[in-house]
């Protein structure tokens, strides 16, 4: 135990820096996934049919490819086509793109939970589709999507470890390097697991709070 504590004190600064990178990567990828997810959903609701087809096609393609393969495509294949992204940007884009389909599903669920009667009330007042979206559907549907959005964020936090494969020094990769150089696999990976938990448990609590708040309404 004493040895564990001594090692932990030694390793923690490195691992905490890795955790910082994990959180940064998660936050940036979250922003990208939300923006793209919302875009897919709004395209999916568009009057103009080709927009709906494109949205559907994008979602099916992204959902059908493993995240790690998507990251490799962005990091290794795009440069051959002349688009050379630094690792962090590639990680944000890859995770954001991969997660945009889950966010789209979250938003779709939230928006479709909006009472049809309220959409009729807006229509009765003469609202056009964009006004209806902005004034009625989004303000009611997005809060309804927040709990599932929170759950998706926890998954994203964990899946951000996949970015270790494209040399981003986030928590998992920082730990791997540490384990290789010290041979203290047990200590290092236990610490990594505890750090991921420390980050995800508060998020899980926040999701539960959101769910409770929403159930009250």
């Amino acid at each position, binding site marked *: 135990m004493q040895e564990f504590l001594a090692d932990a004190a030694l390793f923690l600064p490195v691992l905490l820096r890795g955790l910082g990178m994990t959180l940064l990567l998660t936050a940036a990828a979250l922003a990208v996934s939300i923006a793209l997810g919302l875009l897919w959903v709004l395209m999916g609701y568009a009057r103009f049919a080709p927009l709906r087809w494109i949205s559907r096609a994008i979602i099916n393609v992204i959902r059908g490819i493993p995240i790690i393969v998507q990251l490799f495509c962005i990091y290794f294949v795009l440069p051959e086509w002349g688009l050379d992204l630094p690792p962090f940007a590639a990680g944000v884009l890859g995770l954001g793109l991969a997660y945009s389909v889950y966010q789209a599903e979250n938003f779709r669920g939230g928006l479709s939970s909006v*009472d049809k*009667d309220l959409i009729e*009330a807006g*229509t*009765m*007042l*003469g609202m056009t589709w964009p006004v209806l979206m902005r*004034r*009625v559907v989004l*303000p009611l549907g997005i809060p309804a999507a927040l709990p599932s959005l929170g759950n998706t964020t926890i998954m994203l936090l964990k899946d951000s470890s996949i970015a270790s494969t494209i040399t981003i020094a986030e928590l998992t990769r920082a730990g791997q390097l540490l384990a290789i150089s010290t041979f203290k696999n047990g200590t290092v990976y236990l610490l990594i697991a505890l750090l991921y938990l420390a980050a995800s448990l508060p998020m899980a609590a926040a999701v539960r709070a959101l769910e409770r708040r929403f159930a009250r309404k």
Partner: protein
Amino acid sequence: MIRLRGVRKSFGERDVLRDVSFDVAAGEVACLIGPSGSGKSTILRCINGLESHDAGTIEVDGVAVTPQSLPQVRAAVSMVFQRFNLFPHRTALDNIIEGPVHVLGQPVAKATARAMALLERVGMASHAQAFPRHLSGGQQQRIGIARALAMEPRAILLDEPTSALDPERVGEVLKVMRDLADGGMTMIVVTHEIAFAREAADQILFVDGGTIAEQGPAAEFLSNPKTDRTRLFLSRVRHPL
């Protein structure tokens, strides 16, 4: 002001409206009565284009209701719903100014001033900042009526405005409707409140099986219904059980 000629509507196999024709003149109050499922709501919804009709013509102020004319039609005709359908994320006041500000493009200050006057008129001035979930059904419906009036419509359509209310709340809404009728508002009201129909309606239309089975001036219709079907319906409404 509102004119229907040979209006038909089906949902899939079901013919819900078959040949509906009637006129409501400006300033007139028409009450639609009839059994559940006879097509009363569908008639109102076709008039302001929440449903499209399959055949026949509907005119509002001489303008035919078509997909192209919907903005114009909806500006002329507002609707009040059975279940109020207030926006739950907005206060009573904000529900009322929603249309004027975000559809008609009025400045917020002007819309708010008008909304306060409307709140006064429906007896809800002290509840301007309340959210719908904190209001009783009768209070919500009065806000619903104020929201419809805020659009300064030429006519309003009310679909069973009191039938989702507790009995002791019906009177306050009927009173607002009476005031509107007395003020010369053109109204089409789906209702089973026969007393309201007798006092406020100019004409009563009995809807049965998707057509206007009988119609006439309110007093005559109620005191001397011409068909057995109407007589039976009226006696059931007057004497439930």
